[in-house]
């Protein structure tokens, strides 16, 4: 059977070149980077090379890059690290309603410890509004954390504009105010330049850009103080203890380099195929609607609601045809609520529609998309036919 992987927002295939870059560090240069002998120094050099590669992708300095175990740890360190280091100056944090669970749960954690949280609305289009940020900022605010691109619907947030707001207040004396962005779903898809964005901290993970799972980075602007959340040896300039995973770090470095060099062509490729997929689905399937702003979003992601059916049925049926996508409305532990992201953009709680996210990659082909376009309508119709909620009209349309 044909196998078509369209779940690249969940994880991506590791590039062969990235695997090549990692391999020597498993069996040849296997030293601990803290060791002062040749093995250790080779390992250390590999890490510093990767740091330079990542820094270059983000227009940062190598010393501003902290390596750690992934996007989740990076979000945790950014948020809890700022909170711990600056809580004496204020205990208010601003975030958005549809952040990744790593951000939301870190913020919840702080709220339970007495911090005040503002969760900004994102409206139907899935975009934070600047006036809401402005209204939420107080003298007590120490952190604004808003993602750069949303992981379910791909919408891009106005981080540079928020950065300007933050800079303004900082210039006016609020020196302990910081801006963090989770750029996991943006890096490699749109230009991400920490200076242009005006962020103090930025999160990124390798496995969404054809690097390995289990390694990520946190950009920490020079001069920004964070409190380490992992205690032990003096790794990563005392910002993250733990023996560095040299092969994975070599991998994130290579993936970052490839993402930088090929970003434009990859983006064009993904956008073309995504737009084609969207147009075909809308043409061929009735009672379907797109989620999230049509313009301000990353190139590879399409997110739809299909009325009268449930998302998991669609997703599993596609899987049976060899197509991997994800749903934002899977039933787990007896609740088929839409995801918090879909709720945040105003989808009603009732389960009158199933959502699917198609996420493409640089490796996605036109043939794969055509296979999806051939396969999907029949699946939607099959499920609608057995659905008690289907409108008569739709059932007829299907004949």
């Amino acid at each position, binding site marked *: 059977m044909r196998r078509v992987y369209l779940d690249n927002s969940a994880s991506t295939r590791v590039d062969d070149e990235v695997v090549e870059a990692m391999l020597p560090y498993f069996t040849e240069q296997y030293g601990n980077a803290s060791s002062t002998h040749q093995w250790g120094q080779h390992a250390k050099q590999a890490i510093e090379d990767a740091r330079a590669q990542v820094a270059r992708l983000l227009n940062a300095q190598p010393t501003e890059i902290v390596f750690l175990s992934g996007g989740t740890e990076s979000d945790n360190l950014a948020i809890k690290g700022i909170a711990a280091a600056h809580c004496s100056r204020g205990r208010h944090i601003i975030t958005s309603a549809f952040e990744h669970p790593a951000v939301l749960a870190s913020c919840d954690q702080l709220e339970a410890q007495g911090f005040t949280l503002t969760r900004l609305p994102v409206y139907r289009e899935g975009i934070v509004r600047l006036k809401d940020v402005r209204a939420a900022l107080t003298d007590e605010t120490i952190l604004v954390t808003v993602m750069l691109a949303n992981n379910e619907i791909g919408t891009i947030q106005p981080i540079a504009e928020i950065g300007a707001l933050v800079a303004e207040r900082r210039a006016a004396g609020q020196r302990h105010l910081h801006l963090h962005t989770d750029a996991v779903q943006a890096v490699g898809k749109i230009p991400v330049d920490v200076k242009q964005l005006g962020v103090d901290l930025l999160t990124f993970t390798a496995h969404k850009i054809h690097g390995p799972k289990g390694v990520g980075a946190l950009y920490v602007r020079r001069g920004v103080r964070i409190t380490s959340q992992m205690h032990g040896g003096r790794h990563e300039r005392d910002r993250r203890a733990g023996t560095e995973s040299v092969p994975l770090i070599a991998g994130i470095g290579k993936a970052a380099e490839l993402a930088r060099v090929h970003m434009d062509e990859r983006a064009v490729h993904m956008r073309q195929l995504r737009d084609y997929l969207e147009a075909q689905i809308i043409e061929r399937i009735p009672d379907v609607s797109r989620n999230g702003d049509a313009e301000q979003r990353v190139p590879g992601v399409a997110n739809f609601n299909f009325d009268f059916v449930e998302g998991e049925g669609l997703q599993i049926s596609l899987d049976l045809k060899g197509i991997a996508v994800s749903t934002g409305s899977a039933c787990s532990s007896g609740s088929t609520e839409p995801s918090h992201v879909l709720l945040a953009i105003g989808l009603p709680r009732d389960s009158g529609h199933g959502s699917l996210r198609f996420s493409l990659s640089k490796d996605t082909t036109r043939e794969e998309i055509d296979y999806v376009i051939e396969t999907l309508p029949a699946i939607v119709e099959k499920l609608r*036919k*057995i659905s*008690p909620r289907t409108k008569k009209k739709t059932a007829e349309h299907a004949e």
Partner: protein
Amino acid sequence: MYSPTVLAHLDQPRNAGAMEDAVSRGEATNPVCGDLLHLYLKIDAGRIVAASFQAQGCPPTIAAASVLTGMIEGLTPAQARNLAPADVTRALEYLPRNKEHCCVLAIDALRSALAAIPIEMV
């Protein structure tokens, strides 16, 4: 995650759709989950001679309804009333723990349909 049987029923549901000449119709909803299930029965000579369903729900709900409609054909309403959610789960091989409620939903719909059979046909 799902058993081959669940997947097979999802792929090709048996007895799907409303039944025009049903003598009885049952309904169940999971208030938490939002799943909705309609069950139709045809009775002849005191036995269930046909059953069909309509469902909107996750794969196990569809599979449970699909397999159940097959299990009850030929049973008397009294025999059908003895079926329990675990019988449906067994017929589906297995289910993830957090999906077992789907079989409860199917049995609820069945009991609702059985209760709606005109008294003279039972």
